């Protein structure tokens, strides 16, 4: 029997038994759609997190005080017990490394920010002019902190968009004075709206020069040093240089933790990928259920079509012919179901995408390939038994008069 004829014959059967075909298409479709939709939600979450980290800046290396064996945890989550503080001198010493393009020491605290009678509590960041480039910040108005020696400071600050509107209520904040704690700062710049990054909403922060923050919070200790390597390849060199320089300065003790963005990213990437695979796998169980349904329907179909199968054998169909007919039928049904499922899954993904526009829902390539393949695989697997039963039918008994 020619392949085209086998296909044609199976097509006739699929078209001939409408209700049965619809039922199987539905079961297969739901299975495939579930895999696609669920895995695209997982993949969306992964991409969302990866993008969030990406907004940290490229080639970023974070130095935090205290030693931790944890290779990749989120900065800010890690609480290291500090034997000795990280200082501005430490930060400046790092500039010796040729792999480092720029760096920004960072102090973080909460400050009571007031303008006249208005006041609000906001995170206050103390840093240098280089923070802007390292963190890819953009200005809506004015300038960022002026460059200069980080040990001395001018009384200037940069505020987030929301802080500016809330404290200055409609007036232009640029050039105005505000008060953080007991110190006065002139607003030289307003940050463009960027949203969440590194655990802060940049719309709601005030950035002051490093030395001012030290005085404000009465501390010499740095919270972090953000370092930007010259290139992706130099990240590892920068990391070992940092460890080397700081060990030298801390009498040979390794008292800092150096986190590369790559390591953090890779960890999140791994976790979320595994999660996506897991939920995708759960959804794939529905494909197995669909497979069992196919087997059931096919077994019924063998019984219903006993006469036809007997007739085909009498007319010269071999066992292989009959088995192939049943497999082809199953594959056609699975293929139809898979296409239907992909379409429905895609629609579902678009629909969820409308509800949560900030999360990039996309079905991962492996799900789009694996779901239909699994569907076809199960269809063939579960039609083995019915096909064998059909092929073994005795033509005389199959044709006998009812």
């Amino acid at each position, binding site marked *: 029997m020619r392949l085209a004829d086998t296909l044609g014959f199976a097509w006739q*059967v699929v078209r001939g038994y409408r209700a049965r075909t619809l039922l199987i298409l539905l079961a297969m479709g739901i299975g495939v759609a579930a895999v696609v939709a669920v895995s695209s939600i997982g993949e969306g979450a992964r991409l969302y997190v990866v993008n969030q980290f990406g907004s940290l800046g490229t080639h970023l290396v974070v130095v935090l005080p205290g030693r931790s064996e944890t290779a990749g945890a989120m900065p800010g989550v890690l609480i290291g017990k500090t034997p000795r503080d990280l200082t501005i001198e430490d930060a400046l010493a790092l500039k010796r490394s040729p792999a480092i393009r720029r760096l920004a020491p960072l102090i973080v605290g909460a400050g009571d920010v007031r303008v006249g009678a208005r006041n609000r509590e906001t995170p206050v960041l103390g840093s240098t002019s280089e923070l802007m480039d390292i963190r890819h910040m953009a200005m809506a108005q004015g300038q960022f902190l002026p460059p200069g020696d980080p040990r001395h400071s001018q009384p200037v600050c940069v505020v987030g968009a929301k802080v500016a509107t809330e404290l200055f209520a409609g007036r232009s904040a640029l050039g105005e004075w505000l008060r953080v704690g007991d110190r006065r700062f002139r607003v030289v710049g307003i940050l463009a709206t960027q949203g969440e990054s590194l655990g802060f909403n940049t719309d709601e922060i005030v950035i002051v020069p490093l030395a001012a923050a030290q005085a404000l919070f009465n501390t010499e200790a740095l919270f972090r040093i953000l370092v930007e390597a010259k290139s992706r390849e130099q990240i590892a060199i920068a990391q070992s240089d940092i460890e080397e320089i700081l060990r030298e300065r801390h009498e040979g003790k390794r008292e800092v933790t150096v986190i590369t963005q790559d390591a953090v990213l890779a960890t999140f990437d791994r976790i979320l990928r595994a999660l996506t695979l897991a939920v995708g796998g759960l959804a794939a169980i529905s494909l197995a259920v669909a497979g069992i349904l196919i087997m059931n329907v096919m077994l019924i179909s063998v019984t219903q079509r006993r006469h036809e199968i007997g007739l085909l054998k*009498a007319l010269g169909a*071999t*066992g292989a*012919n009959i088995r192939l007919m049943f497999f082809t039928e199953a594959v056609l049904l699975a293929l139809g179901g898979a296409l239907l499922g992909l379409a429905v899954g895609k629609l579902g993904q678009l629909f969820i995408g409308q509800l949560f526009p900030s999360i990039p829902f996309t079905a991962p390539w492996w799900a789009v390939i694996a779901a239909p393949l699994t569907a076809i695989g199960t269809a063939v697997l579960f039609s083995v038994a019915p096909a064998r039963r059909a092929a073994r039918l005795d*033509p005389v008994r199959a044709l006998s008069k009812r």
Partner: protein
Amino acid sequence: MIRLSGIERVFRVGEEEVHALRGIELEIARGEYLSLMGPSGSGKSTLLNVIGLLDRPNAGRYELDGRDVTGLDDDELSRARREKMGFVFQFFHLVARLTAAQNIELPMVLAGIEPGERKQRLARLLSAYGLEARAHHRPDQLSGGQCQRVAIARAMSMGPSVILADEPTGNLDRHTGQEVMAVLERVHHGGGSLVLVTHDPEIGARAQRRLRMVDGAIVGDERG
């Protein structure tokens, strides 16, 4: 061309053994027209099935066109049926979802014959059995006589050497039955052998050679 010797066929029905065929000795020459008659359960359908390679005897030897076909496996039997046998059944056994033309084409499709060749043979068969106007009708849109003509055309599509008809008129009224018999006999005049199982003495009497069976054995063999 068909030579059966010492054919036995035993069915097991629960504990009991039923001898459907006992010691059948039969030779059928090429182009012979033969009817098989006998009471119900006399084994005539079983003999027809054995001749048609649908059923295997428990003992004995079957030679078809000089070849021993007794020991063939299922697939070899399928291929032999495809090449040599044409079946016509009492209940027509047409595939309900296929058109008349598709039903006639079925054995050629199973045999893997090229579509071009199939179309030519199909056109010839449709015109030979007066079915051109009905080619694209499904069996439920055809009369009984038309259905049986489709079945005969289907049986003839592979140019078989034997046509086996099991009560071909059993499901038709008298007039249509006569028509169908005329069509079958035309097939026989074309050169093939025709083996007919029937209850109807009038139909059976039309054959040149008439076998009578009782209890699985051939008890009469008349010619002329």
